[in-house]
């Protein structure tokens, strides 16, 4: 588990990403759990830097796609072009053939392109002209969306949101962090470019396989189920957590425990990942939404209602 410590040491202690430790942990946990992440945040809060830095440190290939309304599914997955020299069709692979794909402003793409991307994320393979290509492991999509954008966007349908293992809501840094960032502004970009891998890809794949072996006691499973069920019973909720959300909590809790250097999960892991695993899967009743209730608050409330396993 030393690679996680190394990532923290380089990015957090090295002040390359300021006040982003929780985001880094959650992204790495998602990677271990073979999931995808939706990052919600206003422009300029280091979403791209975070994704790029992690990819570099993990010796992974990184691609970024700026989603726009005129982007076609083939622009992401790839297409065949006719090669006049050879007289044959040649595959031009899209940016999805990578390890970490940053789909910037995913809600700007048309529903058709969104669903093509999400399908590829789910299946971990793409089909071009009837031919299926498996995506290389590890594969993780980091999609970002701007919470205040209202026009010219196509909000992701609930069914597609459910495919993201976690949603990270990232925001501005504190004043002190901001000053520190300004002080280092001229060197951060160069520092990211100079990052050296802390773990070879093959070793990372081994770690991913090992993290699935984290022991989860039956009482923890019961605790997860109770949390998900409680979201459905909450008075402010129109649609609560799905069974898939329970599986997402379980996967993330195991990865979280593994990141902490443990071979077993504890209720604290479940609490730590409940919010990123649930917030995008909960739909509030409009009357509560208008009063300013957020899914984050609902999850907090649920966590203070569901008793932890006893004895």
């Amino acid at each position: 588990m030393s690679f996680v410590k190394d990532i923290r040491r380089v990015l957090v202690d090295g002040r390359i990403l300021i006040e982003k430790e929780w985001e880094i942990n959650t992204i790495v946990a998602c990677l271990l759990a073979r999931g995808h992440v939706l990052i919600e945040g206003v422009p300029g809060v280091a979403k791209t830097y975070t994704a790029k830095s992690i990819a570099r440190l993990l010796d992974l290939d990184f691609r970024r796609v700026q989603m726009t309304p005129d982007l076609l599914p083939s622009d992401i997955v790839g297409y065949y072009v006719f090669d006049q020299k050879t007289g044959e069709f040649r595959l031009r692979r899209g940016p999805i053939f990578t390890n970490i794909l940053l789909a910037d402003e995913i809600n700007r793409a048309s529903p058709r392109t969104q669903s093509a991307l999400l399908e590829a994320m789910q299946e971990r393979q793409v089909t071009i002209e009837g031919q299926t290509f498996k995506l290389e492991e590890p594969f993780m999509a980091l999609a970002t969306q701007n919470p205040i954008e209202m026009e010219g966007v196509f909000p992701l349908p609930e069914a597609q949101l459910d495919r993201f293992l976690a949603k990270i809501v990232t925001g501005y840094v504190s004043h002190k962090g901001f000053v520190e960032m300004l002080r280092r502004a001229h060197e951060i970009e160069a520092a990211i470019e100079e990052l050296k891998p802390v773990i070879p890809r093959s070793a990372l794949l081994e770690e991913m396989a090992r993290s699935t072996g984290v022991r989860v006691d039956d009482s923890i499973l019961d605790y997860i189920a109770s949390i998900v069920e409680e979201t459905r019973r909450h008075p402010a909720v129109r649609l609560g957590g799905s069974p898939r959300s329970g599986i997402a909590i379980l996967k993330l809790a195991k990865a979280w425990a593994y990141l902490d250097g443990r071979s077993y999960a504890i209720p604290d892991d479940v609490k730590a990942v409940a919010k990123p695993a649930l917030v995008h899967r909960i739909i509030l009743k409009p009357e509560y939404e208008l009063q300013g209730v957020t899914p984050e608050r609902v999850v907090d409330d649920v966590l203070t209602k569901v008793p932890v396993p006893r004895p």
Partner: protein
Amino acid sequence: MRAPLALLALLVLAVSAAAETPRHTPGFPNVETSEHLAELLRLLQDPVVAELLLRLASVGPGSEEAVEELVEKGVLGPEQGAGILRALNSSIDDLAGRADPALLEELRGLLGSEKPDPERLRGLLSTLLAMRESGLLDPYTFIALAGILSGALRKLGFEVPAELSHGVLSSLSGLLSPSTSPSRGAEERPVAGVGAGFPRSPELGASLPSVPTLLETLYPALLSILACSLLTLSLVYRRKRISGLLLRLRASLGRGLEPRTLTAGDDPVSVYWRSVGLVERALGVRKLDHATHREYLSSATRASAELGKYRRTVECFSEITRLYEVVRFAGESLEGAAVRAGEKFREMVESLGRP
């Protein structure tokens, strides 16, 4: 000396009986309940029995005769009487294996010195009382140790502290004759063999409100005064200071209200829940149902830092929490975990005696 002692004991017992709170942690047999204390309180209304019990509680000369008379009157069963007599005649060596060796060593060392340090004596007394409250010492062993300690104190010219007598009285409440126990219908039965030739106490009891009832009536008024005082204080001081004050208040109120019984050789899971009970009472921090073991440890650490004491207690609790986590969630039966948890629990109890 006896009258104020009796009054003090009555008052303490009444408050203990009235202030019993339903904070029973699973895994703890709730042996010394308010019912036992109420029964003892009822017995103390009889002047003869009260005299005998207080003589016994002072664990001084005449204690053995008091036991015999209490057995004769049916207040104590013959078995319990014999047990107490054996305890009163025990020496430190007789208690080897029944009490913590470190405690016995400390007692021996203190008694061996010609001029014992009063601070050390006070510390020993606190440890003894804390161990009794936690259930690490059974009533007979506690009475035996109290007898040895009070005998030595008298020899050195010290007075026997009231807390020790209170501890003996509380221990006695769990040893009352089964026939007088409220669960066996003591309410319907007058106190067996008590007060022959004396006016029966119920007449007196019927004419005056009992102490707990009186306190219950006074509680709303006392609570109102407390609330007003706190409101005033909160206006004067900052909220943080008030929370610290409340923490101290809760800690001091919570201590010693719920004695519990322990059995040796328990697994770290049950030891953990027992230690939660001790931490709750010592630091006044309740473990909420939704709080994880790590969250509770953080709360306890914060509370200890705010109170500025019980650092050692929290250190021991931290180790017990670690063992609990591994055994409970990793499914591992750590070699020696039970022994280690038990050791830490004992250390914790000792540290409660010396915050």
